């Protein structure tokens, strides 16, 4: 099941898709993001995330939710892992430009390497806090307002 935080139609806020099988973590990431002035859609698994992105089975692209500016996904999820979701996003010509951030409670170097090699923007350790989310904002701004351009002071 996916849910969206309420916002005006002509919403200028970056729209983040947060994917996590843990209800506690979904609520936490949603609040962290809305407190950073983001619009949030949550999904409890990879399959549901794909549906939100318009990549679900038998879906047409224009059935999906409004433009997503960033995807944050947990790595360990039953069914489709965050890595597998990342691959599917990067395989799609329509979606591959969306930055994908992988989060995990485990610091596994081979896992981090494989995600970064597959095109993840960043790999972050859980639990996330407000300063982690602040760092993510620069990825979102670049995509939704390319003309405004924002100097992103790196990690």
């Amino acid at each position: 099941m996916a849910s969206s935080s309420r916002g005006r139609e002509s919403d200028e806020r970056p729209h983040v898709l947060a994917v996590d099988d843990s209800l506690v973590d979904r609520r936490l990431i949603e609040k962290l993001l809305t407190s950073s002035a983001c619009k949030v859609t949550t999904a409890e698994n990879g399959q549901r995330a794909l549906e939100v992105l318009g990549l679900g089975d038998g879906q047409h692209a224009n059935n999906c939710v409004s433009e997503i500016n960033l995807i944050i996904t947990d790595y360990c999820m039953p069914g489709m892992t965050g890595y597998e979701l990342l691959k599917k996003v990067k395989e799609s010509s329509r979606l591959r430009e969306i930055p994908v951030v992988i989060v995990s409670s485990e610091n596994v170097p081979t896992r981090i390497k494989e995600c970064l090699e597959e095109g993840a923007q960043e790999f972050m350790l859980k639990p996330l806090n407000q300063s982690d989310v602040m760092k993510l904002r620069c990825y979102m701004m670049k995509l939704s307002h390319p003309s405004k351009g924002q100097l992103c002071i790196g990690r």
Partner: protein
Amino acid sequence: MEVGQLQKSFVDYTASLFREGFLDGQFSQLQQLQDESNPDFVVEVVSLFFEDSDKLLNDLTRALDQQNIDFKKVDAHVHQLKGSSSSIGAQRVKNACVAFRNFCEEQNVEACLRCLHQVKQEYLLVKSKLETLFTLEQQIITAGGAIPMME
């Protein structure tokens, strides 16, 4: 009890929970996220944690009670519990889960059963302490006071 005394009790109690390692910095994060638009955020997330944990502990008890224990399944449950306890700052529960996972890997039944007992103890402890904390908060609000911000 008057508001000032209630507020002092709250501050002292919260400080002791951090000092004794029941809670860590992540809990402070939750408190900082609470605002006028989400005045019950901490209670909400902690309640989700309680529901999730009750279920996971039941699942773990059942899984370890089987003739042929599926250690991968046990590990998956502990991993989940470790994750959610870490997310709300329930440090001692999280640490108990870390130890538990090591024994899952070793497929050591006796040790796993001991760990399950330990995790349950820590969970019940932190649950009771958080409920006391929330009751204190409620008393302050009822007496017309504001919840003190912890440093």
